[in-house]
């Protein structure tokens, strides 16, 4: 009997087995994401603006002026509050529209947006905000996909600028790696692969260009190291060597 009690006591200690916290958090949002695929698609920017503009017809009637004034005042307050909102919050769509409307439509602007999305994701992860995690991850992945397309366009049209923005891009990748470490999971494998491919194209273009130039011994050595890193598919390291040559 004592033997049996001892055995049961030891069995009950198995309740100390627990899943990793990061997995518990990530799995929940992934499940909700997976199950809701295709449900409740977001409106495009044009649809959202069109929706807002449709309300302008009420301005034809003076009786609505006070309502409009109230709307403006409350809108101002809403604007302030929305600037601090995160993906998944009710006011985030307001922030998103304002950001899109006030950001230039060029490649460097997409990097700025991606940096903001990364900062949002970091806030969500560090603050353990489970309900925002899926949206923040999705928004970040979308911005990374934009960045990849932007970088490819820059490599083709403005190679010098591409090399310049690649510094910010490497910082973005490092920030993403830190968040992945906290979560214990990979974020957006497909988007990361697109980004890696864009970096590969940039490194190839830069290496081809450098081969045509006359370099001093020190630069030749850096170029060799960049080639080695490229062969090992370590494009970040290859870029760091290319930056040193270009400086």
């Amino acid at each position, binding site marked *: 009997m004592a033997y049996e009690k001892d055995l049961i006591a030891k069995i009950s*200690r*198995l309740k100390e*087995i*627990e899943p990793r916290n990061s997995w518990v958090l990530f*799995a929940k949002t992934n499940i*909700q994401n997976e199950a*809701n695929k295709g449900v409740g698609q977001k409106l495009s920017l044009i649809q959202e603006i069109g929706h807002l503009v449709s309300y302008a017809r009420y301005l034809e009637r003076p009786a609505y002026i006070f309502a409009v004034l109230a709307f403006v005042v409350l809108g101002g307050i809403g604007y302030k509050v929305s600037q601090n909102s995160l993906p998944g919050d009710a006011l985030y769509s307001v922030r998103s529209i304002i950001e899109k409307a006030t950001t230039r439509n060029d490649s460097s602007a997409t990097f700025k947006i991606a940096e903001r999305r990364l900062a949002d994701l970091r806030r969500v992860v560090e603050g353990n905000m489970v309900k925002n995690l899926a949206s923040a991850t999705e928004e970040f992945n979308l911005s990374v996909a934009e960045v990849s397309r932007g970088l490819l366009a820059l490599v083709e049209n403005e190679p010098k600028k591409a090399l310049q923005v690649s510094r910010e891009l490497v910082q973005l990748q490092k920030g993403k790696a830190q968040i992945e470490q906290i979560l214990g999971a990979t974020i957006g494998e497909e988007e990361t692969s697109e980004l890696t491919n864009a970096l590969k194209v940039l490194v190839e273009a830069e290496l081809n260009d450098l081969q045509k130039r006359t370099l001093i011994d020190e630069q030749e050595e850096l170029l060799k190291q960049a080639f080695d890193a490229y062969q090992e598919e370590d494009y970040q390291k290859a870029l760091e060597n290319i930056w040193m040559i270009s400086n």
Partner: protein
Amino acid sequence: MEEIDQYFNQVYDQYVNKIYRFIYLKVSLVETAEDLSSEVFLRLYRHIQKNNPVIENPQAFVYQIARNVIADHYRSKKITVVSIEKTTIEIEDIQERTREQGEVSLEMDRIKEAIAKLQGDYQDLIIWRYVDELTVPEIAQITGKTEENVRVGVHRAIQALKGKVDI
């Protein structure tokens, strides 16, 4: 939609640890336990989406899904016999991983190993009764057996375990 998420979150938070532990004790690998646990809760979410969000007995329901998921897993793997060598490798692997995570002591590994050697039904009964500390009526609801059958089953499972463990 919000109602579904709210209900799912409530059930998930309440049972995720138990379901993970139940599966982990049966499959003995962290990655597999995580994948299968995710599958359990994905099936739960889809069920809630399709039907009325409120499930009469969520605990019995998620354990039943877990048993189905484990059965599907082994069916897809077509596992019939696990060799002693493979078991040893897996145990070493678990020990290394769990030691890192500070989850399970070596002594607990020995008990875990002994439970893994039991037949499936006995494993379930031991885990539910002594690890998850479910009552006999609760186990009866999950298994669909009478309370008396559950009591007898638990007693036999403990006797079987005694023969497998050296304490």
